[in-house]
């Protein structure tokens, strides 16, 4: 007797994997106090769902079913944990009162430990590349092969990176707990940096054929939403969710049907995702009430100016220059300075923009950064300084790995009578 047909079950399990993986795993880690064992138990639970749900039907709350199944397996594992494992230190588990964001689980009984899990993945004692890999693997449930593909490294390299990070968590005793209120802002900041890095990597992939890596973008939007649910009062979290929503709202209009790059000026604003923009704008307003304004909230405010502008020509460039100014004052960065210089060019003319970009030319951190010669090239082109523009486009081309961006730069170069190499 089949209660649910196999294709519906497969879809339900896949959906649950996407939505509930982190919840199931985080709740299981609390039992095993060991990441590897918890991952195995969680994977077993999803495998069991594939055989159980066709017979007994898809449960009303798949996440609760999976968590209970994984934790039952975990209890067994702990009971039979072999002597050979005993010398390995277990994750530090604090029997403290629940910290901020540790909500009661869906059915009240199951703990929501996702905040513990993500702050552990993004612990400052781990290298940034390890933080990103662990987040994709443990929070998003990606396989090691998928994580490796996302970052264009070999699977064995990625496997070694993940193993080393897990080993350090266990041996150095990185605690599995929600940080104290005093430590929380710093630790949340590290988590937000990882999610933001995932987003920017997906938004414009550093190398490859496609402009956007949809999977990375969508995973980072989901992680931002999850953090917002876990820390609803945190303005920095609100700022990041606003930034990813407002930026991603333009996704479908960033390339033409033939795959060609479309600049902000050329994009069809009617096709922008209006509900996402409305949600993002509301979050920006909320986040900007905190002092000092969170970093991602300021970036989101800049995205909001574009999102709310009816056309390219109506863009309030003076507002954008001012926002980049505040951003650069609070978090000085050559990339922010470059973005500000570009905005100056639109607010006050190509001459002013070129001067502002050239003022950054000596910055060592911008050496090899393709967007600097690309911005120079555009201002030079608009000023009719063709030979210099050609040289700058050629330089930008040599520093750009994304195929869609390369084609755009090569097209500009051809328009100016140059030959792309």
């Amino acid at each position, binding site marked *: 007797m089949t209660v649910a047909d196999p294709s519906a079950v497969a879809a339900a399990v896949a959906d649950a994997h996407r939505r509930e993986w982190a919840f199931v795993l985080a709740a299981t880690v609390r039992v095993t106090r060991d990441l590897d064992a918890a991952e195995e138990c969680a994977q077993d639970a999803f495998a069991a769902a594939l055989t159980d749900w066709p017979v007994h039907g898809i449960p009303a709350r798949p996440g609760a079913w999976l968590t209970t199944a994984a934790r039952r397996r975990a209890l067994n594992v702990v009971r039979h944990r072999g002597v050979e494992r005993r*010398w390995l*230190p277990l994750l*530090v588990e604090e029997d403290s009162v629940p910290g901020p964001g540790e909500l009661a689980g869906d059915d009240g009984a199951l703990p929501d430990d996702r905040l513990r899990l993500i702050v552990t993945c993004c*612990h400052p*004692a781990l290298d940034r590349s390890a933080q990103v890999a662990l987040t994709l693997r443990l929070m998003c449930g990606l396989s090691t092969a998928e994580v490796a593909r996302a970052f264009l490294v070999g699977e064995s390299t990625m496997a070694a990176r993940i193993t080393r990070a897990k080993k350090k968590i266990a*041996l*150095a*005793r*990185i*605690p599995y707990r929600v*940080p104290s209120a005093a*430590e929380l802002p710093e630790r949340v900041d590290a988590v937000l940096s990882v999610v933001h890095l995932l987003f920017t990597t997906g938004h414009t992939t550093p190398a490859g054929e496609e402009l956007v890596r949809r999977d990375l973008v969508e995973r980072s939007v989901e992680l931002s939403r999850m953090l917002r649910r876990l820390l609803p009062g945190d303005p920095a979290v609100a700022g990041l969710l606003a930034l990813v929503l407002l930026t991603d709202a333009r996704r479908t209009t960033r390339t033409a049907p033939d795959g060609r790059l479309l600049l902000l000026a050329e994009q069809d604003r009617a096709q922008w995702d209006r509900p996402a923009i409305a949600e993002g704008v509301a979050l920006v307003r909320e986040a900007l009430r905190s002092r000092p304004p969170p970093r991602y909230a300021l970036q989101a405010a800049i995205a909001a100016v574009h999102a709310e502008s009816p056309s390219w020509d109506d863009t309030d460039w003076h507002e954008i220059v001012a926002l980049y100014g505040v951003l650069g004052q609070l978090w000085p960065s050559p990339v922010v300075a470059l973005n500000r210089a570009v905005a100056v060019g639109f607010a006050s003319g190509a001459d002013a923009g070129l001067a502002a970009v050239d003022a950054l030319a000596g910055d060592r951190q911008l050496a090899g950064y393709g967007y600097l010669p690309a911005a120079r090239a555009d201002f030079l082109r608009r000023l009719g300084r063709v030979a210099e523009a050609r040289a700058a486009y050629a330089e930008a081309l040599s520093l750009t790995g994304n195929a869609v961006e390369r084609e755009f730069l090569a097209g500009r170069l051809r328009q100016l009578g140059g030959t792309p190499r």
Partner: protein
Amino acid sequence: MSQYLILIYEDETQYASATPELFGEILQEHNQFAAQVEQRGVKLLGGAALQPTGTATSVRGSEVTDGPFAETKEALGGYYLIDAPDLDAALAVGKLCPARFGGVEVRPVMTFD
């Protein structure tokens, strides 16, 4: 509780040219550090300051050579052994540890039990 070794790496030349007043100040910092550690639920199990690397002798097999194992700008100049509940507590102690001419490395101690 787990043991961690806090290894202090500093630029030795700064100590070579330090005045007695500066030495006194640094000694004072280390005494204060010891008091602060205990207040944080971390136990100080031991520690020592080392003579400069100019006094070191390296031994590899039967070969004996003058000098430290590796020449670095910032050399191991002292250590503390602590007992802390987790890495966060150990890192908090690492941040307190005086090391004005360099920094510290925090390493978990291997246990066999």
